[in-house]
Every structure is written in C-alpha cells, then in structure tokens.
C-alpha cells in the first residue's frame, strides 16, 4: 500500500473475465435496482409531493373562485407583464377557466420543482457518490464505465414519467379536460427530463457535487429570469418574446395546456435531454473517476496573513459562491432594470385590478422597481439558506471538527459564518440594486431613480437576515432540520407575490418578515420595521450561538 502523492484516483483495474470486461453498461440492472432501493422514500416523496401540491393548489382555487364570474374578475390578471414575470405567458386568459388559471398561475412552480428533483437526483447518484469514494467501490465490481450515469438517468426518467402520469391522471380525475391534463403532466415531466440531461453534463465539469448542483441550479435560475423577460415582453406585445424559448421552463409553458395543447415544444425538452446527456457521456469518457475536467492548479505554500481567524476562514470558504452570486445578480438586475421602460409602456391600457400588485396606476414605475427589490430579496434569501446548508456540509463532511479542536469557540465559528453570510446578503442586494438602478435609470432616462432603486433593494437586508437567523438557529440546534428554512422562504414568496391579489388575511401577511419594510420606492420605508427586524434577527442569532454550545458535534 503505497501512499505517495497520487493526484487523482484512477478507476481500479477491473477484475472481470474478458467477455464481460469492457462492456460499458455492465452492472446497469443491479445498480438501477440499488438506486431505486436507496431512493424508495425520496422517490415517492418527490413524485407524490409535487402531485399533492398541485392538488392543493387546485383545491384552493376551487374554494377561492367557486363560480366562473369570480374567476373572470381575475382573468385580465393572467395577461400583464408583472403576472407574466411571476407566472408565465398566461395562455387563454381571454376565456379563463379554472384549469387554465391553475396551470397558468402555479404551473411554473411545479415545473421548477420537477427540475430541482432531477438535478438533485442525478447529482446524488453520480457526483456525490464519486466524491465520497463510494463510486470507487462500486466501479471495482462488475460495473461498466457508463453504468452509474445511465442508471442515475434511468431513475430520473422514471421519476419524470411517474410525475407526468400522476399529475395528468389526477387533473383528468378531477374532471378537467383529459387531453389538456395529459399535456400539462407531460410538460412538467419534460422540463424535469431536460434538467436531468443538464445535470448529467454539469456533474462532469467539477469534482464537487455541490458545485455541480449549483451550476445546474444556476441554469434553472437563469432560465427563470430569462423567460421572465420574454414573458413580460410577450404580455405587452413587445418583440422580445423569443427569449422565453431559450429555456426549458419556457418550452414546457409553451405547450399551453388546456389552450393549445401543443406537444411539439416538449419535443425540444426531450431533444435537450438527449443532447445534454450525450454530452455528459462524452465528457465522462474524457476524465478519470472522481476527477473534474479542469485539473486543479497548485497554490501557495503558505496561508496569506489575513487567513488567521474564524471570520477569515468563513469568508474564504464562501468567497467563490459570493463572487458567482454577485455577478449573476448584477447581470439580472441590469436586465430587469433595462426592461423598466418597456414595462411601463406595456401597462398603458391595463385593467385596474391588476394594478393592485403595483399599488395603483399612478405608481407603475416605482411599483415595478419596488417589486423587483422584493424579488431580489427573495433571491438573496436563497443564497443565505444555501450558505447555512454549506456550513452544515462542512460539519457533516468532517471539516468543522479540526476547526473546533483549535482555540475557536463554537459561538465564534457559527457567529463568523453567519456574519459573513449576513454581510454577503447586504453586498448581494447592493449588487442586484446597482444593476437594477443602472438599468432603470438608463432605460427611462430618469437619473434620479438611481438612488431610490439602490436603497429599495438594500433596505430588504433585515428581512433576509431574519430568515438567515432562523436557518442558523436550526443549524445550531438540529442541523438535520436546516432545510426547514425553505418553508420560511416559500411562505414569504407566496405571500409576497400572490398575497396582494388573493385577499389573504392581514395576520397571515404580517407573519412574513418581508412584508414590513416596504417596497421602496413605491411604498415608504419603515425604519422602525428595519430596526425591529434587525433586533429580531440579532436575538435569534444570539439564541443560535448559545444553543450551539449544547449539542454534540456531528462526527463520522
């Protein structure tokens, strides 16, 4: 057993007899069965969970809009730029029906859910396994080079099929048009399929499962923003509607269930799956097991002198993510800011009901910019929760133990990490706000918008901090429960974007930390709310720091 430096582990020489050796799919069947067995709970959690979510939305709508007239009042809503950004192109709003409204309003979130399901499933069975070294054990057996990726994709495809059938069947079972129901189910599955392929490529690019999932997630998030621009343009008859066609979410939405029932856009998703998966296979043939495509460079033999405190370490470990997020949010801010003038023009003859979301007609411009501030606060919240999940991975992967075995106290470590993330939140809101401010000022020619827009974005920081603090508390007490922070996010998202038009009770709205500061510049900023939320966030963080003293570190 030599232990001299071996830069990358090579696949173990296969001990197979010649006739099996070399078959790249050898062992596929047993791997596939094994993955399904490992995923028996996850599989149904995702597929049934998404279907039940759809059922829930359908029920809510039936309760909120018991008659066709109730619905009619909202019909116009589906065809304006703001709704287009948050929901999609809104096909068939001229003759609205419950099922059209259902898939037009909530369809995109199910599509996003299915996409995440595929990204996580494919990385889980490929890169996560390689990174942990378990893949090496597997590959040393009668398992061909392509078998693990193929089995992982097979699991993902099976999940997509099940989702499509369950959703289509359930909608048809509720009495909606069978053809449209099947198209909708298929559109959700197709987006998932596309992301299974995209993830298959992403896992080849880097050695780290989280980076791979991050890249695929960035493709998804970027797609969300792009098709938002395209759909907004379409809603006001602009010429940029083709942008929606650049993204898997767009292809699924263009199937227009219950309206056009088009199948062919879904064929693009399938083609995307085939091409991306093929690319994944091709790339995987060019690299060693557990290695990425880009070989690691050598670095410095000594740590820079600033790298000498837990705060510095927390910053060093979050730096790459912060850089990526800064660039993305700045670019997204620019794009949405640059859309401001087109947005205003599109509202020229919008019906009053839909202006509720923007605080009325007179506030169109500021309303749009204020809403953008909230949207970027939501995106920044995603960053904050992911940062807490990374801290959890640090611990679960055994890298926190050596830190806490030095003279770093637990509160210092958790506090440093949280502080870096909290400052990162402000920085990211600033980056997004800067992009938005530049874009808005340039597109409208109103330079005085600049400061207002920037302030309107950064002002959301205390709300994001509150969610961050809750995630930190979950980490400190039971790290397994950190993902619960997504519930806070989901709640705030629904309330923030769907609350105003659905007449949600005041108390329910007030429960969201994002509803107090105000969407500046359309609403006044509440300094009190900012101070109170900051105090709440600080209080929860203090509880987290104290709580972290009391539990065992998670050890291998």
């Amino acid at each position, binding site marked *: 057993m030599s*232990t001299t*430096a071996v830069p990358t582990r090579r696949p173990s020489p296969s001990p197979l007899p010649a006739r099996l050796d070399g078959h790249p799919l050898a062992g596929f069947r047993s791997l596939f069965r094994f993955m399904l067995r490992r995923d028996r709970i996850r599989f149904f959690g995702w597929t049934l969970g998404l279907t039940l979510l759809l059922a829930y939305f359908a029920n809510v709508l039936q309760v909120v809009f018991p008659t066709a007239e109730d619905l009619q009042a909202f019909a116009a809503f589906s065809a304006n730029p703001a709704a287009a950004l948050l929901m999609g192109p809104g096909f068939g709003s001229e003759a609205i029906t419950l099922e059209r409204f259902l898939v037009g309003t909530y369809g995109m979130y199910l599509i996003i859910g299915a996409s995440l399901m595929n990204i996580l499933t494919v990385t889980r069975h490929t890169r996560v396994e390689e990174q942990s070294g378990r893949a090496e054990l597997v590959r040393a057996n009668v398992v061909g080079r392509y078998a693990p990726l193929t089995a992982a994709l097979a699991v993902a495809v099976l999940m997509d099929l099940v989702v499509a059938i369950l959703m289509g069947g359930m909608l048809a079972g509720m009495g909606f048009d069978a053809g449209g129901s099947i198209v909708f189910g298929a559109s959700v599955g197709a987006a998932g399929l596309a992301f299974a392929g995209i993830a298959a490529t992403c896992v080849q690019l880097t050695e*780290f499962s989280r980076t791979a999932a991050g890249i695929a997630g960035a493709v998804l998030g970027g797609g969300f923003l792009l098709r938002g621009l395209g759909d907004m343009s379409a809603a006001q008859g602009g010429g940029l509607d083709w942008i929606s066609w650049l993204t898997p979410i767009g292809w699924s939405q263009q199937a227009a269930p219950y309206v056009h029932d088009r199948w062919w856009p879904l064929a693009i998703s399938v083609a995307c799956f085939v091409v991306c998966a093929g690319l994944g296979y091709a790339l995987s043939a060019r690299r060693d097991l557990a290695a990425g495509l880009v070989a*690691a460079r050598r670095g410095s*033999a000594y*740590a820079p002198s600033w790298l000498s405190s837990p705060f510095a370490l927390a910053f060093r470990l979050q730096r790459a993510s912060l850089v990526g997020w800064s660039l993305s949010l700045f670019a997204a801010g620019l794009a949405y800011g640059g859309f401001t003038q087109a947005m205003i023009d599109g509202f020229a003859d919008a019906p009053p009901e839909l202006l509720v979301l923007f605080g009325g007609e007179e506030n169109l411009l500021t309303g749009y910019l204020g809403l953008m501030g909230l949207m970027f606060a939501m995106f920044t919240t995603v960053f904050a929760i992911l940062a807490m999940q990374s801290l959890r991975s640090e611990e679960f992967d*055994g890298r926190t133990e050596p830190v806490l*075995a030095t003279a*770093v106290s637990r509160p210092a470590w958790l506090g440093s990490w949280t502080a870096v993330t909290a400052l990162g939140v402000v920085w990211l809101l600033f980056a997004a706000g800067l992009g938005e401010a530049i874009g808005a000022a340039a597109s409208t020619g109103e330079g005085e918008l600049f400061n207002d827009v920037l302030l309107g974005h950064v002002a959301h920081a205390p709300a994001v901090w509150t969610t961050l603090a809750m995630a930190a508390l979950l980490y400190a007490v039971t790290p397994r429960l950190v993902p619960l922070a997504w519930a806070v996010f989901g709640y705030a998202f629904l309330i923030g974007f769907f609350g105003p038009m659905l007449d949600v009770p005041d108390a329910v709205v007030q429960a969201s930390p994002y509803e107090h500061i105000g969407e500046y510049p359309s609403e006044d900023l509440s300094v009190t709310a900012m101070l109170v939320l900051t105090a709440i966030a600080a209080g929860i963080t203090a509880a987290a720091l104290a709580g972290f003293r009391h539990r065992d570190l998670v050890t*291998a």
Partner: protein
Amino acid sequence: MTNAKQGTAVPAIQISGLRKRYGSVTALDGLDLRVEQGEVHGFLGPNGAGKSTTIRILLGLLRADGGEARVLGADPWASAVGLHRRLAYVPGDVELWPNLTGGEAIDLLGRLRGGINRARRDELCDRFDLDPRKKGRTYSKGNRQKVALIAALASDVELLLLDEPTAGLDPLMEAVFQSCIREATAAGRTVLLSSHILAQVEVLADRISIIRKGSVVESGSLRELRHLTRTSVSVMTEHPADAITSLPGVHEAHHDGEQLTFDVDGEAMPVVMRELASLGVTGLTATPPTLEQLLLRHYGDELAAGVGNGNGNGSKAPAGVAR
C-alpha cells in the same frame, strides 16, 4: 523512557466512569483512564471500542452522558477553548478544504490554535516530504494525514491527542513520525496515541490502556501487562522434569522429543525457575508474549484460548468486564 514526573503533577488526562450513548448504542460504558504528564500513552482496542469517542469527549466536541473527564486539570466541555490552546489533535480521517492548499490548511489550523512555529513547520514539511502547494482535494489519504500531523506537531502545546495519526502513512513516514514523537516527549509533551499499529505502540508507549466495548480492560506498562500473561518455555533438563508440570501456574505442558514445553503464568515464574535449576537445565528458551498476543486475548469475543499464551489471570478476564 520512564517518567520522572509521574505522580508529581496533575495527570494530563484523568477519566473516571465515563459514559456515552449514541441513541441505543452504548459507546462508552464506565471508562477509566489516567495519563500522566510527559508520558506516551498507547490507547488500543478493536474497531468500535470507543477510542475516537473518548478522544472527542476529551476535546469537548462530544458531551459525556456520565462520569468525569479532566484534561490538564480542566473540564473539556466547559473550558474547550482554553484547553485547545494547550493541545493539538490529529483525527484518523483527515478532511481538508478542497480549495485550500495543504500549506494554507497547516498555517490556518496553527494560527487558530494560537500560533505556529514557522521554522518548525517548514522543517516538518521537509521531513514528511509534503508538497504544501497542492490543493486539499488532490492529496492522497496519507498526505492528508501528514497535513494534520504537521499542523499539530508544529504547535507548541502540552498535549497531543492522536487518533490513529499514521493511518495510511508509508513505512518511511512512520519512522519520521516515531522520531517526531520522541522529540515531543523529550520536550516534555504528553501524548495520547490511539493506534492499530502495534509495533508503533510497542516502541513509543510508556504505558498502554486496552479498551473494549467502551471500558478499559487492561492498563499498565508493557512490562506489567506482559507479567499478567504467560510466557512460553521450552526446556531440556538432565533429570526428568515431570514434577514441573504439576506446579501451580504451569499450563499445557507436553513433551516434544527431549524437550518439555509449557506455558507459565507471570507470577509463577520465580518458583518454576528455581525448580528447573535444581533439575539441571541443559537448554532453555523462553518467549514473552508479544503485544499482539496480549491484544488478541482482549479483542476476541471469547477468551482466545487458542491464541499463543493463554490467559493466566482469570480475575482480569475480559469476559468478566464485557457486557
């Protein structure tokens, strides 16, 4: 390597009746351990015996469910930070930050502990033949281990807690490690060394504790432990030696041509030797038990009767301790 300071100062580590459960698994079940200042204490036991759990409690990373642990006189859970300035830890399975180089990780861990001796760090990198410019994710298992070892050995601390520190090191590096530990003890440091490499423990350790199923079943210097077991003797005598076989403490005697072979309990040795002398010894070999034989006796589920020297010490038999 006897210990001059023994008994004069607070023990470096003192554990009594330590208990720890993970859900329904009992990891430590009334563990007692005492490590004097300045000694190298070998910590041996089969997989899952509780060695790593003990060390993590000593680091304040895990909280004990019962019993008491003192490190350098302080409670490791309550005064973790203060203690960590005075000790260094090497885990058995080192995980490094994928994007930091080995050198950065060494400096960082040293600084977080309160300072690192730069000259010593460079010297150690040299001796362990570590390239500190590589990224953490590109190190092999042995090289990751070296990073943690260098970070620990380059610090001026009183106590080293080493949990299988050389797992994955090649024999050359093992030798470097052993000389580093000797230098550490020469400098007055205390070492708790958990290890499965018996040759290493045999060479380095002043005292040894053997842990099994969460409690210590044997503790003492290698000499003392040997004394508790049997020595194999084979002898040729002028006069028939049959009388020997009926002496207390003599076991499994049998004739092998002209030779008589038997096992003797440690405490029966003087009597047996006196008796043999009177019979006119013409040839004699006596083999003390190896550490391996000692351990196998404790590791197996049953008393490993078939293994080398049997058990001469019923009261300390692990069967009485194991639950």
